[in-house]
């Protein structure tokens, strides 16, 4: 005899206990510490911070541990935590001009004031599995050199000085906040950049890649890519001046793109911009390509119908937390909708059958 399924609550409880056990894995293997994840899985931590929009390496490491290494799940944990935090105010814009760079390269000039700094990069490594890492070893030591003290100016400023770059326009003093106001179209550039900065790395990468393959091509050069730490300053109303409240690591990419211009205005290079928390240069470069592709309208370019030119398409689909939630919700029960579809399809088939019978009889 049929008994309606009960005990959803107990099932959920048991499933969560199982999850906790599976997360820990074999207890004979030592447990990962948050510090280990933070120090040795740094780029994963960076991605979780960037897409979770919260700069806190320890919490990001905790989220990665709790999520069993599922980075989108970890980002979700950080986002859900972040949304509950009180807001004391906004920082001043960070001055990336004054970044203490650990990496800084330009693809457009061989030598630049401040020099090219490769930094800790995978570039030029041969992608061969290093089996030595399977054994415990001594901590590797890189060669040391005293830090440069001279400023490291933005390379695009040099082109700017000659009037070769499109001028930077001063936006509104306070950009809109995507996490406090609904995303509405058309979205202006600050809003677009904000959405891209927390957008899914894979999605933004694929969009950028599609522009390179001709779907909204913009002929991008990496004018400058820089990674390093920047001071974060905040105006304290009681003090009446700004104080440094900490520093964060950032990756910034500026691209130099195909030029605009007309009979009346001389040709100028255009820009794409990417800024991401942590060390995440794939994301920063991708972001600047997509940013540039989305600017087709203001630059008087043709809309070729490329996905990367379509702000609604890009912005409504770049958030992996929205995407994964909606995608996975189809696991939830849909008995009721499915039942109504079942009835409808049976009715349509019955009506069609009756029709056929009638025709046969005639």
């Amino acid at each position, binding site marked *: *005899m*049929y008994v*309606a*399924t*009960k*005990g*959803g*609550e107990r*099932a*959920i409880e048991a499933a969560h206990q199982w999850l906790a056990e599976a997360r820990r894995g074999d207890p004979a293997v030592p447990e990962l510490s948050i510090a280990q994840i933070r120090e040795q899985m740094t780029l994963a931590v960076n991605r979780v911070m960037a897409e979770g929009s919260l700069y806190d390496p320890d919490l990001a490491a905790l989220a990665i541990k709790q999520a069993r290494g599922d980075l989108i799940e970890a980002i*979700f944990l950080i*986002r*859900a935590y*972040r*949304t*509950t935090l*009180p807001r004391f105010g906004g920082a001043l814009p960070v001055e990336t001009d004054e970044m203490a760079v650990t990496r800084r390269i330009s693809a457009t000039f061989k030598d630049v004031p401040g020099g090219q700094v490769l930094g800790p990069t995978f570039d030029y490594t041969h992608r061969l599995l290093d089996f030595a890492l399977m054994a415990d070893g001594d901590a590797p030591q890189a060669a040391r050199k005293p830090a440069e003290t001279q400023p490291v100016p933005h390379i695009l400023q040099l082109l700017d000085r000659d009037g070769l770059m499109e001028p930077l326009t001063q936006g509104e003093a306070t950009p809109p906040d995507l*996490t*406090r*106001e*609904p*995303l*509405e*179209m*058309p979205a202006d550039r600050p809003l677009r950049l904000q959405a891209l900065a927390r957008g899914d790395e894979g999605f933004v990468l694929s969009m950028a890649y599609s522009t390179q393959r001709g779907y909204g091509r913009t002929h991008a050069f990496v004018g400058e890519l820089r990674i390093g730490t920047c001071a974060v300053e905040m105006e304290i109303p009681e003090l009446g001046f700004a104080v440094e409240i900490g520093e964060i690591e950032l990756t910034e990419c500026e691209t130099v793109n195909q030029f605009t211009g007309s009979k009346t205005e001389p040709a100028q290079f255009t820009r794409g911009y990417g800024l991401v928390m942590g060390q995440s240069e794939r994301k920063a470069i991708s972001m600047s390509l997509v940013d540039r592709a989305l600017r087709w309208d203001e630059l008087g370019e043709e809309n070729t119908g490329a996905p990367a030119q379509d702000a*609604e398409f890009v912005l*409504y689909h770049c958030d992996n*937390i*929205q995407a*994964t*939630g*909606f*995608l*996975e*919700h189809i696991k*939830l*029960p*849909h*008995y*009721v*909708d499915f*039942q*109504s*579809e*079942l*009835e*409808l399809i049976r*009715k*349509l088939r019955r*009506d*069609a059958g009756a*029709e056929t019978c009638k025709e046969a009889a005639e």
Partner: protein
Amino acid sequence: MSEAAYNFAYLDEATKRMIRRALLKGLAIPGYQVPFASREMPMPYGWGTGGVQVTAACLTPEDCLKVIDQGADDTTNAVSIRKFFERTAGVATTEHTAEASVIQTRHRIPEQALTEGQILVYQVPIPEPLRFLEPRESETRRMHALEEYGLMHVKLYEDIARHGAIATSYAYPVKVEGRYVMDPSPIPKFDNPKLGGNAAIQLFGAGREQRIYALPPYTQVVSLDFEDHPFEPSKADHDCDLCGAAQSYLDEVITDDRGGRMFICSDTDFCASRRADGLRGRLSPEEAA
């Protein structure tokens, strides 16, 4: 982090105020989709974050909450959301429709008629009824603004031309007070007649899509149709096998692998109350003595 670290009903008061403002706007313009700054919730988008935020903004400590999914109080997601509010708001909960002051639902309207003072909160996945005809948000908003709903009827026309009947069985579009075309969320069209003239306040929350809309009590809601192909609420052509109800929406349950099946009320509270009143269906278990 302990529950005490969170505000009553999880959301901070500023967020609740923002949501309440959107709700009031929605009630003032029935059927109009109000954009709101949906927050990230500790449950995934698509799993009821819109409904949860609306419920959180409505709840007071005196409220009594009921949560259903597919009409049932014991489906896993309903259990999970009820538990969330037990933990974060500490409000009383119930499975009885009549006892609840706030009911959060996914995909159903309870069978028992709602009364004045009750609030029904719907979880909405895609609030835009025109979305699958026109994917662009900027364009659909314009269509609503200009009342350009011809395309909606083209879709219904195409259904009839191809299938001989309107082939929409759930999330069946409605027109509210002769103005806005609205998606009633994926309720079966059987439930559509309960949308109009309802004594309760009906609130719709779409978290991922950042939209809220509402039907104040006793609002006129008309399911779209043609004069010669009128809207028909439909259900399985059976009575409930457990309580014998003839006019409730039924789930089909496959009981064996030889085509055996039974039909039972999707509204578990409705079914259980009828059985408690001694009503019986075709396959009701014998009374245990």
